[in-house]
């Protein structure tokens, strides 16, 4: 068995970036994700990588765009207010089919909000965020191990489909240290024949989001939708815990899923059968799986570190099959186990 080491979430992400074969990082500092660029700034020089602390988030995201067009694995990391600034480049990359990985260590909003962990960027991450009909793959870790593993996975998915892949953590996951078994380094990174490498010996290649003719842009959008349908079919990921005999179902991701597990144990000890469904991909969202579970339970409680965003996707998945309740917290606190227990008990 490989050795477990104690590692901070942000450091584990940065190490996973290196192990995924990424050598091009562009960023701009923001708490609570600063350990990611700090780690890479230290390690990249000896690995022959490129680390740039740009003049702004917008510049950093555009540098990622350029690097991606040149065919290398590239990424940026940020936290919520910085994510907003990076959206322009994300829309352009999605339009031009340029892969990249973005790690958003969410903090509280709106605006500058605060620096504590939050989940209030769910809409921004999963519903586009920027302009145009596009989707990014969104992965949601619940512990440091998954934060590292999903960072590796994000590179693979992003390259496979040529879309932006985001790892959506939060300030708690970024700052906390936990035992982690680091993933093995990749042996090689995928070849990208579409990349702009100089046209000597081949035909000209163009990577652009601009398509002035209605037909060209229309067909491009249809292609994108077909791609998103393919991703939805193949890449839905989720986890479930004690759902087999559950009368009540909690739907929660990331940090909220951790506290839900503790609440479920306490509830089961007092004879109330509760289970947890945890979306791992927030896009594509595991709608069908939640819809199936909805047929079997009396009520669903969605728990979020925001005032209720994922709950809308849960309601769409459930339709009229059962009632969906929300327990949302804001301001940078983690949902309270006792309050979860109390809420579920109130359904009895």
């Amino acid at each position, binding site marked *: 068995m490989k050795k*477990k*080491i*104690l590692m901070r979430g942000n450091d584990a992400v940065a190490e996973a970036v290196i192990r995924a074969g990424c050598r091009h990082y562009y960023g701009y500092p923001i*708490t*609570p994700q600063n350990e990611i660029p700090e780690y890479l700034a230290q390690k990249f020089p000896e690995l022959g990588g490129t680390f740039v602390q740009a003049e702004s988030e917008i510049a950093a995201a555009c540098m990622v765009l350029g690097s991606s067009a040149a065919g290398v694995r590239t990424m940026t990391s940020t936290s919520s207010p910085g994510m907003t600034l990076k959206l322009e480049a994300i829309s352009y990359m999605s339009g031009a089919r340029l892969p990249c990985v973005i790690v958003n260590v969410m903090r509280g909003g709106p605006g500058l909000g605060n*620096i504590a962990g939050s989940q209030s960027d769910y809409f921004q991450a999963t519903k586009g965020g920027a302009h145009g009909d596009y989707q990014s793959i969104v992965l949601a870790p619940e512990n440091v191990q998954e934060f590292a593993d999903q960072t590796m996975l994000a590179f693979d998915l992003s390259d496979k489909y040529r879309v932006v892949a985001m790892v959506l953590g939060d300030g*708690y996951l970024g*700052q*906390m*240290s*936990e*035992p982690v078994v680091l993933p093995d380094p990749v042996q090689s990174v995928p070849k990208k024949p579409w990349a702009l490498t100089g046209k000597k010996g081949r035909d000209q290649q163009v990577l652009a989001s601009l398509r002035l003719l209605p037909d060209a842009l229309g067909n491009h959008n249809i292609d994108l939708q077909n791609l998103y349908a393919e991703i939805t079919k193949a890449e839905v990921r989720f986890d479930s815990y004690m759902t087999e005999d559950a009368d009540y179902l909690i739907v929660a991701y990331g*940090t909220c899923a*951790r*506290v839900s*597990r*503790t609440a479920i*144990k306490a509830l089961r000890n007092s004879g109330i059968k509760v289970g947890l469904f945890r979306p791992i991909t927030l896009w594509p969202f595991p709608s069908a799986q939640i819809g199936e579970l909805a047929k079997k339970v009396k009520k669903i409680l969605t728990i979020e570190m925001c005032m209720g965003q994922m709950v809308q996707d849960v309601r769409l998945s459930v339709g009229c099959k059962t009632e969906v309740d929300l327990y949302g917290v804001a301001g940078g*606190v*983690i949902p309270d*186990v006792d309050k979860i227990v109390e809420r579920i008990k109130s359904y009895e």
Partner: protein
Amino acid sequence: MHKEMIIAGFGGQGVLVAGKIACIAAMTEGKHVSHIPSYGAEMRGGTAHCGVVISDEPVSSPVVVNPDICMVFSTPSLNKFEPRLKKGGILIYNTSLIKEKPKRDDIVAIAIDANDISLKHGSKNGMNMAMLGALVKKVPEIAKLDSLKAALDEGMTERNKKHNPTNATIMTDAYNLIS
């Protein structure tokens, strides 16, 4: 076994390192652990603290609000965290720097001259190690003294590893001094 702990002191007293060493020691004994620092607008000379959870079960929330154990290195930390300790909780406080007495009578207060123990072994910076020695003596479920000493290899930065033998001695001395 499930223990939630807050370690608090001035920035620079080794608060975060102490939490990390305790976590590594417990982790090597197969326990679930988490460590989270207070982060953000911290300043030199201000208070720093970290939350540590050590459990037989996977850790749900890493944030510690009302700890079972509190280790305080300085007077402001005592004042801030003593009220948050659970009833019957353990307070380990550094009497080298803290001249006040804990106020509560529903907790177990353990006094230790942590800076003096460190200085006795020729180190100005080993106070946190003395606190850890006292911790595992009073709360043996966290980790064995040997695991704590072994954790120095993984937990200390390269530049500080040369102090590991001294730090291990300080841990042992504090462990033996606490009854």
